[in-house]
């Protein structure tokens, strides 16, 4: 009888216990490696390279976000496409996004990235284009990691070379009242002197040397931008927003509509 009571008690206590939930699977940290845009075929290996042609967006991204590791990042592009270049490089960081053209000579290329805690290597193939290849689409340039050195607020400096002929669309972007109305609404305002309440966006020649007379925030942004002036083709729109630096290239296929779409993605609706 006693054993029966004990057994009953045991069963009850077992039944009364709340079932333990299944352990939540811990998501393994994302592997840091060189990635390619969606739609690019291949595996990045020598026998199965990533394949780029005139229909694909031609850029590579390294998903490295740790600020200390970013400072140690080195790219090895000697065996890469001839015109490959970083598009979000800063003074402290060589950039995590590389852009190149599908108009390069067809061939097999190798790109490597090395940083303090790892490395990544990919093979890519550029297919030769036909007699009249369509122009490459400018890649969407995702914002880089949040940079504690980027000042708060929303600022834009559009840089161009005034002695180079502009295309129809480039000329319109630089003079568009729609873009300026948006920037007037969204950009931070200057706080001192003649710049007080002036929206902080500028349209400057890349050889501008007078920026020291502008507002402190614009001066700092231009100083931070200077290393890019030698590597990023003009015209382009440099943006500081939400603690990040973003570059919108204004190449041949950029239009007012495209620029507005990207500005709205970054800064919110018109």
């Amino acid at each position, binding site marked *: 009888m006693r054993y029966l009571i004990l057994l009953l008690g045991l069963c009850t206590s077992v039944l009364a216990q709340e079932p333990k939930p299944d352990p939540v699977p811990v998501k393994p940290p994302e592997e840091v490696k060189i990635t390619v845009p969606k739609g690019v075929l291949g595996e990045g290996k020598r026998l199965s390279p990533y394949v780029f042609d005139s229909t694909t967006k031609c850029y590579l991204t390294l998903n490295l976000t740790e600020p200390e590791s970013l400072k140690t990042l080195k790219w090895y592009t000697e065996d890469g496409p001839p015109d490959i270049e970083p598009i979000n490089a800063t003074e402290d960081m060589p950039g995590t996004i590389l852009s190149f053209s599908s108009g390069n000579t067809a061939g097999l290329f190798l790109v490597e990235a090395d940083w303090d805690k790892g490395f990544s290597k990919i093979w890519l193939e550029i297919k030769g284009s036909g007699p009249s290849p369509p122009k490459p689409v400018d890649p969407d340039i995702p914002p880089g990691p949040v940079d504690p050195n980027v000042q708060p607020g929303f600022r834009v400096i559009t840089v161009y070379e005034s*002695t180079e002929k502009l295309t129809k669309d480039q000329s319109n972007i630089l*003079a568009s*009242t729609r873009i300026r109305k948006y920037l007037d609404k969204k950009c931070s305002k200057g706080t001192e002197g003649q710049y007080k309440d002036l929206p902080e966006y500028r*349209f400057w020649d890349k050889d*501008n040397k007078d920026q020291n007379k502008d507002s402190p925030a614009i001066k700092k942004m231009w100083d931070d931008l200077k290393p890019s002036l030698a590597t990023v083709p003009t015209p382009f729109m440099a943006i500081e927003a939400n603690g990040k630096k973003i570059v919108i290239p204004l190449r041949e296929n950029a239009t007012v509509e495209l620029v507005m779409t990207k500005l709205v993605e970054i800064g919110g609706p018109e």
Partner: protein
Amino acid sequence: MAEILRPGERIIDDNSPENFFNPAGVRKGFEGMYRRGFSNARYAALPDRMLIDKSEWRDRIAAKQKDNAQVSDLLIYKNLPPKNQSSSSLCWYTAPTGGYEAQRVIMNQPYIEFSNGYGAGRITGGKDRGGWADDALDDMENHGLCPTKYCPNNQAGLDKKYRTPENAKHASENRITDGWWKLEPGYVEQVASLLLQNIIVCIGYDWWRHEIYACDLLWDGKEFMFRIRNSWGDIPEFPNGFGVLKGRKMIPSDAVAFRQVSV
């Protein structure tokens, strides 16, 4: 045509009566290229790479109008007032000064009104007389423009009492940078190419004895035209300073352009 022009805007062409473009009481001052002697100004010729083929003009004009991306759209949006040379003969310095203020709008710098009298007075020795725009641009590059806060416009600004070391310093902070171009006389294609790339062109007309600046290229279905901004203030003949030149009246006798100014 109605959709190309703004309310009140007039087209000046070979058929326009004299009072259309010379209303009573206005002064001018451009001395005409037929009277131009040797220029000491240092300038560059416009490189051919800046030229836009004429076959592209109409498409570009249409795109600018559709996108509200004409330079005049910007100047109106930012409420840049037209210059007013009043009863002075300083159109040759006033038009470039207006162009300088417009360039600052394009760059989104704060609005400052600059004196046409300060620099003109240095060139003319204080006299209220006519001149040429390349002398003005040369002066604006080497010495700069003085804000009207320190030196008034027109005849008052010609007085040598304003040419002080302090004002020289104020002016030196506001200069044309990166050089300027002197275009070839009569070369409409050069002017049109620059206007389509948002570069303002200061043009002198021998038939008018007057200097203005051009800001847009227009197409009326048959011919190209220049939209200009005059320096006679806001008057009925040139509402908000704007007007349109067409036919032989648009062909430049003299044209100069700058691209960048101090911030």
